[in-house]
């Protein structure tokens, strides 16, 4: 009797949450998969099944390929900047935990991660501004000719990488700091007693011990990188009137196909590509972790 009462309570309590969950997560995820195999222009009523045609077309679509290329470069660029820098910073901050500034370090490194994205991107847009920006001012002070940061095809991607790394860094440092705090202190002590220098300890103990964390942060950074949109929207588009060279990203291309070209099925197949990329990254993470646990 009591058991039945509990069951009824559980079902009653869980059902509304699950219904909402199903409707705002499962239904659209399923719809994305379904639409990707159909051709649907918003205006027409029928959505003919076209199989993998959308995917075939995608891989000969120069705009999509450009978006895929840009997004991949940005994602891996952010990764290459964030991982070494955040590990280095986290070790330094961890060593100075007793310093009276340690709160200041953590706060200011983490702040860009939580601050509203658009205002922060505005600040960077001004910094990169070719005519008025402090970056060119600083460069000219060093005797380097001013650059058209947001117009040059290579530089504009670098600008986006800088902005994204600035935002991701704090999160990565935070996760590394937790990892460092959980390292067995006996191991580090033993290394010190054996006469290992700080640099040796870092390379031979800290870095290998933090491998799972590095893996996790890498995957999170890459997934976020593949979803990059707002940063490119602000820095490298013609919003705010100030024209910039457009850096096409996957999400950008997807939204444009859906809402400007009214090709929803085609856009959905782009979303499926994004999903596949994310799944591959996650699977790689699990696989490496499992292999590590085996040995």
């Amino acid at each position: 009797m009591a058991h039945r009462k509990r069951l009824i309570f559980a079902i009653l309590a869980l059902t509304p949450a699950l219904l909402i969950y199903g409707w705002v997560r499962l239904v659209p995820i399923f719809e994305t998969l379904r639409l990707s195999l159909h051709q649907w222009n918003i205006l027409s009523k029928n959505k003919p099944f076209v199989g993998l045609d959308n995917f075939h077309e995608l891989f000969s679509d120069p705009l999509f390929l450009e978006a895929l290329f840009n997004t991949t470069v940005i994602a891996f660029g952010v990764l290459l900047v964030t991982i070494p820098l955040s590990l280095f910073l986290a070790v330094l901050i961890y060593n100075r935990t007793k310093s009276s500034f340690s709160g200041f370090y953590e706060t200011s490194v983490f702040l860009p991660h939580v601050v509203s994205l658009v205002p922060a991107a505005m600040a960077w847009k001004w910094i990169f501004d070719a005519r008025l920006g402090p970056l060119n001012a600083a460069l000219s002070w060093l005797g380097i000719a001013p650059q058209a940061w947001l117009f040059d095809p290579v530089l504009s991607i670098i600008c986006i990488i800088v902005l994204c790394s600035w935002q991701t860094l704090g999160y990565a440092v935070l996760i590394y700091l937790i990892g460092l705090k959980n390292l067995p202190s006996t191991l580090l002590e033993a290394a010190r007693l054996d006469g290992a220098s700080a640099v040796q300890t870092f390379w031979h103990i800290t870095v290998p011990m933090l491998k799972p964390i590095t893996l996790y942060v890498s995957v999170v950074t890459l997934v976020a990188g593949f979803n990059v949109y707002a940063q490119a929207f602000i820095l490298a588009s013609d919003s705010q009137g100030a024209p910039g060279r457009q850096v096409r990203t996957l999400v950008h291309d997807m939204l444009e196909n859906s809402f400007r070209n009214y090709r929803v099925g085609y856009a959905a197949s782009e979303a499926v590509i994004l999903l596949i990329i994310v799944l591959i990254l996650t699977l790689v993470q699990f696989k490496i972790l499992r292999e590590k646990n085996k040995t």
Partner: protein
Amino acid sequence: MKQLEKKKFFLNLGAISDYARMSKASDWFIDFFLVLFSLSMVLPLIILISNAFKTPEELLLWPPTLVPENPTLDNIVRVLGETPLLHWIWNSLSFALLSTVSIVTTSAIAGYILGKFRFFGINIIFSVILATAIIPFEVYMIPLYFQVKSLGLLNSLWGLLVGYLVMSFGIFLIRQNVIQYIPDELLEAARIDGAGEFWVFFHVVLPLLRGPLAALGVLAFFQAWTAFAWPLVVSTAKESYTIEVGLALFHTGFTVDLGLLSAASAIVMVPSVTLFVVLRRQFVQGFANTGLKE
């Protein structure tokens, strides 16, 4: 012999103080580097706030100044008077608050049931939630847009909310905490004393989850507050913009004015930065939790 011992002793002493001096110097050097680096991290934000107080002439000055020479409130007064900035902030605030309430509620209930009740299919439900947690919002945003559209909720707070009603990770987080920190014996004891299931949930479970729920709340609030792609797609009328979209599309209808834009950005940023500094612990807890997924 004694002489030698003494010498050794002093030698050791010398080595120790040398070591101490060296590590002190390196500490000082690390601190110096970290202070510089931390300052450079917040420098863009400082520049933005400084720009908000500059006159139009000073904004065009080259090389740019770091501290305004003739600080003026002109930009702030104008941006508040000429743009619907406060209205956008209000939209974002109500969106973020409602989303927080919804995410905290659904996560608390689902996390508790999935963590403490055993019945057929419950593991499948949990696996599905866990699996969908990996999928980024951008992947299913377009079909969700059409769902919102078919309900006639475009350009409304409720339409915005549809995207941010639940958080897979929140359910997962609360379930972990329920399993870890709420012993079955405690619940059984309450039931034996005659407490009903609702009473147990509200008076035993919820108080014990206060910490993780607060961290989740902060996380949820900021997730909605900084949302960009979804509000951009769902809200196309200027009155229904969130602050992020409003700022991003600032030029439409107004001429681009760097001073106004900086002022608007500063008005948005200063309260959230203050909030962050005040709630730092919950923040760090919330974001740190996301790292313990495995």
